[in-house]
């Protein structure tokens, strides 16, 4: 909280004029100078042109590839990591998905997997999630996607396992130390916003083509949410509680294990869930480097625009996400209500009463035996090893999805064109031309000034450095085009996020109904819904914005809902008793009190929007997204793609810095620690 200390001095200078007037003044000045200098020094770079930096990146990439077999770093470092991860994934695959040791089928067949999943969900969670998990897994078989699903599960489990192994300790550290947090944040921004396409090809150079590369690609993208949200959780524990613990003589370690971790458990689990979601969101991209599983089915189907088949496989990914999410959530609730010791997990929650506690232990043993029998059967008998039937449910789903898509394409496009043109001409085009046609130094100065006013000196400096580096990448003009779309998308994301998030936070019923849709939007491979969107909106920047909103809005909704729910019920009741109506409760109590959640939502919303820039490039957004994709596809453009990827990261770091600092300042001014 270094910023907090600086606030009083800086406030002194600015207090005279409210910040929003200063920002408005800066913007007015911008417009004025824009009118004079329009079209000068815009640093535009044509699609096929390269700068010296881009060529240098190409050379570095080539030289790494050339001495791969003699470099000790490869021989003793990357190869070892690859071996460990390859073995982990291959081991899980031989258990559940791939034929092993000449058997023609995996060690454990579908019946055994369903049995284990059901048993574990019940033992760690409750009966309801156990039934859900068993139904979900059986559904994969009915879809005709058993083996593909198990391959995806094997890969996801490995990636999530390694992510958490690294992520939770780092998150706790970042939560307890401001310095660690400050150092880690740009790296996390980097990992979450650097487009996978940029490092996908180099990864296969380091870790070869195979499960290791796929796992590591997934891990890079999936670990940051675990770290960030764990840190956020630790920080959200009220300062008074922590101080009380210290004043009662707790050591740092005791405070961590007895106060901070138990009190932040609920939010940490949200981090785990987000990690799972992020890992599953990578399934299709990893398929481009031969990662086995559902992603391959999606990619293959989309080559011939077979939306039905792609949707069927996408649905399997969604079902897997929902099952994993609900089981982990139930497990955390059990551990939170049960005895919070290491071996307390299996014990029943106290609230369910005596007889159940007594019987639960016996039932658990019996259930374990049943699961073991199912595993044995599925190991031995063909009918329990290979899922019976042709997967006819899958073809039904596929043809239904095809019908719906075709109908929507044929009947909705009139309306959708009007919407697209309204947003494009009314909002996007003016903003974009302001950004791209202004001289670079003008936009740079505006960014630095706005950053400094909103976020303080540190954010201003960050913005300045990022602007300088952006110019250095040679991708300035494309960055500004992307920035315009990103800003529009983020505004839409936040608008949706606040409306739906507050609704979900206030109504458990709404939460239950909406949440599966949000999960679906986060993990359904974008192209499955983008094919109909392409028909509706064409290959345009608007389609790219829609894609970003679909992907980024769910996370903001979830975070805001969580924040609204965390507002103490007594406060809300007090406000209601004092005669506040619903609108007043929301705007005067619930939203202001969930300010830190709102800040996190803006931050994550922006980062998620930026992580969709490349997908946007695939559907008509052009600019940085297209540069990255082209760099992945054409050797000569590799360096330019890398530079474009860096530009996306720089945009991310800059806005992350500004939004976080701004959030800290607003909350600090209001006298709360967070």
């Amino acid at each position, binding site marked *: 909280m270094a910023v907090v200390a600086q606030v009083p001095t800086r406030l002194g200078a600015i207090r005279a004029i409210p910040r929003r007037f200063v920002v408005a003044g800066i913007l007015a000045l911008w417009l004025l100078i824009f009118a004079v200098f329009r079209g000068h020094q815009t640093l535009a770079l044509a699609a096929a042109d390269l700068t010296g930096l881009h060529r240098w990146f190409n050379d570095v990439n080539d030289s790494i590839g050339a001495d791969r077999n003699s470099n000790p770093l490869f021989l003793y470092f990357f190869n070892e990591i690859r071996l460990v991860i390859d073995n982990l994934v291959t081991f899980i695959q031989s258990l559940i998905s791939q034929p092993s040791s000449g058997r023609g089928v995996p060690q454990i067949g579908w019946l055994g997997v369903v049995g284990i999943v059901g048993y574990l969900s019940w033992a760690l969670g409750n009966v309801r999630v156990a039934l859900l998990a068993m139904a979900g897994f059986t559904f994969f078989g009915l879809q005709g996607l058993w083996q593909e699903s198990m391959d995806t599960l094997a890969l996801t489990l490995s990636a999530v396992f390694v992510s958490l192994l690294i992520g939770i300790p780092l998150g706790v550290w970042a939560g307890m130390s401001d310095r660690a947090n400050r150092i880690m944040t740009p790296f996390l921004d980097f990992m979450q916003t650097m487009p996978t396409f940029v490092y996908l090809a180099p990864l296969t150079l380091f870790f070869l083509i195979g499960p290791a590369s796929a796992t590591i690609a997934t891990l890079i993208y999936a670990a940051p949410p675990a770290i960030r949200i764990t840190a956020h959780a630790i920080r959200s524990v009220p300062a008074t509680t922590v101080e009380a613990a210290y004043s009662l003589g707790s050591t740092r370690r005791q405070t961590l294990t007895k106060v901070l971790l138990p009190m932040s458990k609920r939010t940490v689990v949200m981090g785990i869930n987000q990690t799972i979601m992020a890992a599953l969101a990578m399934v299709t991209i990893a398929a481009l480097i031969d990662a086995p599983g559902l992603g391959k089915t999606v990619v293959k189907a989309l080559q011939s625009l077979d939306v039905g088949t792609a949707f069927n496989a996408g649905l399997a990914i969604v079902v897997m996400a929902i099952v994993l999410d609900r089981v982990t959530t139930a497990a955390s609730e059990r551990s939170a209500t049960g005895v919070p010791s290491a071996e307390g997990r299996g014990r029943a929650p106290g609230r369910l009463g005596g007889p159940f506690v007594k019987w639960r232990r016996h039932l658990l*043993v019996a259930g*374990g035996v049943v699961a073991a029998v199912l595993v044995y059967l599925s190991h031995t008998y063909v009918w329990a090893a290979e899922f019976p039937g042709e997967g006819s449910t899958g073809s039904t789903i596929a043809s239904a999805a095809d019908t719906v898509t075709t109908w929507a394409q044929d009947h909705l496009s009139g309306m959708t064109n009007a919407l697209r043109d309204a947003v494009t001409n009314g909002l996007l085009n003016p903003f974009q031309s302001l950004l791209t046609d202004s001289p670079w130094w003008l936009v740079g100065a505006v960014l630095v000034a706005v950053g400094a006013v909103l976020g303080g000196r540190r954010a201003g400096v960050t913005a300045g450095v990022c602007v300088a580096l952006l110019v250095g990448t040679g991708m300035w003009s494309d960055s500004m085009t992307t920035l315009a779309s990103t800003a529009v998308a983020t505004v839409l994301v936040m608008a949706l996020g606040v409306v739906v998030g507050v609704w979900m936070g206030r109504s458990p019923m709404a939460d239950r109904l909406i949440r599966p849709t949000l999960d679906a939007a986060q993990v359904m491979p974008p192209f499955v819904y983008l094919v109909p969107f392409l028909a509706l909106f064409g290959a345009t920047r608007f389609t790219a914005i829609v894609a970003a909103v679909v992907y980024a809005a769910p996370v903001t909704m979830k975070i805001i809902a969580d924040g609204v729910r965390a507002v103490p019920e007594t406060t809300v009741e007090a406000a209601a008793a004092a005669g506040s109506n619903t609108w007043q409760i929301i705007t005067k109590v619930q939203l202001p009190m969930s300010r830190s959640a709102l800040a996190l939502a803006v931050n994550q919303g922006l980062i998620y929007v930026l992580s969709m820039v490349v997908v946007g490039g695939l*559907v008509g957004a052009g600019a940085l997204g297209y540069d990255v994709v082209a760099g992945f596809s054409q050797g000569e453009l590799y360096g330019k793609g890398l530079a474009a990827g860096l530009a996306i990261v720089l945009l991310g770091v800059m806005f992350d810095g500004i939004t976080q600092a701004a959030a800290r300042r607003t909350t600090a001014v209001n006298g709360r620690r967070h």
Partner: protein
Amino acid sequence: MAIHLVAGTRPARWRAGAAGLTVLGLALTACGGAKVGDTPSAAGSSSGGKCGTFNLAVNPWVGYEADAAVVAYVAEHKLGCTVKKKDLKEEVAWQGFGTGEVDAVLENWGHDDLKKKYITDQKTAVAAGPTGNNGVIGWYVPPWLAKKYPDITSYKNLNKYASQFKTSESGSQGQLLDGDPSYVTNDAALVKNLNLNFKVVYAGSETALIQAFRQAEKKQEWILGYFYEPQWFLSEVPLVKVDLPPYKEGCDAVAAAVACDYPVYDLDKIVSTKFAASGSPAYSLVKSFSWTNDDQNLVAKYIAVDKMSDEAAAKKWVEANGDKVAAWLK
């Protein structure tokens, strides 16, 4: 589990054990059926023979998938190879030549940059001759447009219609929808050098291009875009190519000054240096594999339109074209 078993009282363990045993007994008596391993699986693993494992890269487009399906089918069934298909983007596949994870790429579209890097510089790959397919790249319009305005298929008349091609992305100019980032395009230079009142808009993916053309044909909308053949989509919507000034040797030497059509590419095969020297029968198959655009389009249609599996599509074609396959195996 162990903790609970130990902690549990004796009767509890007994009861649970009895329940478990009952279930086990029931299960074992009630369920029978074929055991795993009773019927030996397909001959694939047993007849490996001298061919061994053949690592075949499969790049992500349907035409390539057709090539790979047929070559893999022949290698497996006629040569007894164990074929490992690896789904990879081009760049990654070429990289695999050096790391020993890819033996062959079956349909290479030009890619002089990759050839220089891996064949000339790193010497990890060698060319293995043409596939017999001709790759055509150019500007296309949907059939309804070419029918209604026959003169539109000459670049000279494009300016006349430019305003019709306007979209939300192209401002006051007509839109030229460019595309799949995998292929080199000179379109920005072409538009400039041919003085066309068009703006290049990057669709960004094959999916976006196909969807744009499909929708345009269905709704009779105006569209001009970059496309290529052989491509399965042309069997659904036969796009019509716009004539640009004809290609002449060297007219594309200076990228910024290009004012002519794209050359016709002879698609070719690339293999890893190691594979070429291995004496594997799979290598001689790859080397002599050659077929026409019509052949590929047919298999691609089986896969993309008739939704057959790769294996089934390849089988159907191989059985109908025994003579061609026999020529590859000589």
